[in-house]
């Protein structure tokens, strides 16, 4: 029952006056008075930001296993570039919270080597754009080692950090790397949306014996979500490889991950007013991809819209579309719709930036198209 209340409460949070601006204003907090039903249950639906969710997950896992340590730029004395690692240096000391020089290739390789030895490193990239300097270590040194060594060298490492567009940071600081990493066998790629996701998936990632790429989102760090006592428990974790149906529906399936889950849920609200019941799937795990859940949903709704922030070509949506066409072709009543970032490097000017990333209205329009209910927007120049 708690789970239903939780999703109800979360939807309430999202129903507030929210403008889906790229600057990502914090969800408006609805005062307690409008949560009448929750009063009947334990008053234990706390609010937690994604930042705190990640921080507590790191803290608890470091406390539980002395082999877990964190390394990256500014993770220690600066308390974390985005304050995700706040307080950890004081608590665990400089041997377990290591400030590195600005040398991604070097420190990522050192992290992977420590994982070869048997420690459980968490390597933080200030953003995943900088992971490109270290991508040889993520792929060739980490992802492939267990296979090449026939199981002798396992790599229990987590690479984490913000991924995708922030606000006004320009082309070199805005790329989404989900599709690139998720194409590589040997890696697991996770992307949380809510605080529950952040806590559960990060804990699962740290406990996992394989290399995990953990794609966070800078805009979401400050967002608050209700969390149940189960989520707050230190043993909480979310299974890897399982998507979550954030909102049930019967007319069209919308898949998304990270920040786009929030946009998709808003789109679902708008669609509901037009009588379209959208099912929103929060992928959570990009690799392994939960094809079973996606296909089961499409077999129910017969229509699919994939949503992602990254570049469209060879993207996550392309893989989902292919999977559905291969496994559920007879169930599709409409072509699969893809919403993705624009096929351009991220521009700086705010109006262009807004045009380069998906907006809620794009998701709504695509869903309506999939339901054959759209009056098409006139083509841009």
């Amino acid at each position, binding site marked *: 029952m708690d789970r239903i209340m939780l999703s109800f409460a979360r939807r309430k949070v999202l129903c507030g006056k929210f403008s889906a601006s790229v600057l990502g204003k914090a969800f408006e907090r609805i005062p307690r008075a409008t949560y009448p039903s929750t009063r009947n249950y334990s008053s234990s639906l706390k609010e937690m930001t994604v930042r705190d969710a990640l921080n507590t997950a790191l803290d608890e896992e470091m406390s539980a296993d002395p082999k877990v340590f964190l390394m990256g730029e500014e993770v220690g004395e600066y308390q974390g570039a985005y304050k995700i690692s706040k307080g950890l240096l004081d608590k665990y000391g400089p041997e377990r919270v290591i400030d590195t020089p600005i040398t991604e290739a070097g420190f990522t390789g050192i992290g992977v*080597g*420590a994982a070869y030895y048997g420690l459980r490193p968490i390597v933080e990239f200030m953003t995943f754009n900088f992971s490109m300097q270290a991508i040889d270590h993520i792929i060739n*040194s980490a992802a492939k080692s267990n296979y090449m060594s026939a199981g002798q060298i396992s790599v229990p490492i987590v690479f984490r950090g913000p991924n995708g567009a922030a606000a006004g940071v320009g082309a070199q600081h805005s790329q989404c790397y989900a599709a690139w990493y998720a194409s590589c066998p040997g890696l697991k790629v996770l992307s949380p949306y809510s605080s529950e996701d952040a806590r559960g998936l990060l804990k699962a990632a740290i406990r996992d014996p394989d290399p995990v790429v953990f794609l966070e989102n800078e805009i979401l760090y400050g967002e608050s979500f209700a969390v149940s006592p189960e989520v707050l428990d230190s043993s909480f974790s979310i299974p890897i490889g399982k998507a979550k149906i954030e909102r049930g529906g019967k007319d069209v399936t919308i898949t998304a991950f990270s920040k786009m889950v929030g946009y998709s849920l808003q789109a679902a609200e708008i669609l509901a007013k037009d009588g379209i019941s959208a099912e929103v799937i929060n992928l959570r795990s990009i690799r392994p991809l939960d094809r079973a859940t996606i296909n089961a949903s499409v077999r129910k709704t017969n229509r699919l819209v994939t949503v992602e922030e990254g570049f469209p070509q060879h993207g996550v949506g392309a893989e989902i579309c292919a999977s559905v066409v291969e496994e559920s072709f007879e169930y599709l009543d409409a072509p699969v719709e893809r919403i993705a970032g624009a096929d351009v490097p991220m521009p700086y000017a705010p109006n262009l930036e807004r045009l380069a990333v998906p907006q809620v209205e794009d998701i709504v329009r695509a869903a309506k198209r999939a339901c054959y209910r759209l009056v098409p927007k006139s083509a841009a120049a």
Partner: protein
Amino acid sequence: MAAASALIKFKFPFRFLLLRRFSESPAEPVTMETSLPFSAHKCDPPPRSVTTSPSELLSFFRNMTVMRRMELAADSLYKAKLVRGFCHLYDGQEAVAVGMEAAITRRDAIITAYRDHCIYVARGGSPFEVFAELMGRRAGCSKGKGGSMHLYKKDASFYGGHGIVGAHAPLGCGIALGQKYSKEGTVTFMIYGDGAANQGQLYESLNMAALWDLPVVLVCENNHYGMGTAEWRASKNPAYYKRADYVPGLKVDGMDVLAVKQACKFAKEHVLQNGPIVLEMDTYRYHGHSMSDPGSTYRTRDEITGVRQDRDPIERVRKLILSLELASPSELKDIEKEVRKETDEAIAKAKESPMPDPSELFTNVYVQSYGAEAFGPDRKEVKADLP
């Protein structure tokens, strides 16, 4: 020349003449000088005087002979097309592998690049496992899934076997971080070549190793050619032992197994107290970079023959053993015959090992797969739940 400059101190030399079997040679210490002095950068070099024993010298001879035979056999197997892809041979460089092993324990770690067959054997692996892996058979040390460049022996702290030039430099520093974190009192020997010595990530990880006092010895196996490019064409400063600037370095005659042993012993002690050190091993490979490289387009045959005649590591030890009368020439010949026979048997046995089962395509992708799916080229035809 070694005999002339050697300072030999041991009792009752005639005792050894009477011994018929080398395995009964006592462990009585023998002290001698390395053939060349060490050159040092920002440190005091170790003494040239090295302590060894008859049994150790004979084991050096045997182990290097095993390695030499194995690499020459790999050459033949490659030409017979039983080995495919890449095959980077180590013959000429055996003294580095054997001397290093003599100075350290199996809990000290070694990581190297793709010229790894002999390091694997030095760490306790068998030539049979190497041959089987080269031929892609399931008895190979990586079950046929790695190949020549991906030999590992974790139980002997050998972390491979890496194909990307320079990438294992930070990996080695990371293993040293693990050793320091676990307070093991062990060290890591990270072996790279003169070709990798210009890689940026080497200097990135060297900086962190020095900053954090990681117990890592950076061993540059300088065989003077990075693939087909001579060191003077690739490096503005080819004095690799000085290239680490703020980190001390030592230049070592890499063809002298005793010098290698001395340097590695010195380096291990240094690194446990003071953080990283660089050892530049002046060595030579007789083969080209790999089996696709004849090795004679960028260097003269005279140069190769010259090194073989003057500096071959096995011949050097043979001369030393004979001059100290630790064994007779025929005893050494017997060892060589025995090694040849063992090598042939290993090859024959490796040839009998079958290819991996097709189901192995999908094993070891993850340690814990949660039943995730993987697909073959035709996903409707070949699909597996990962074990």
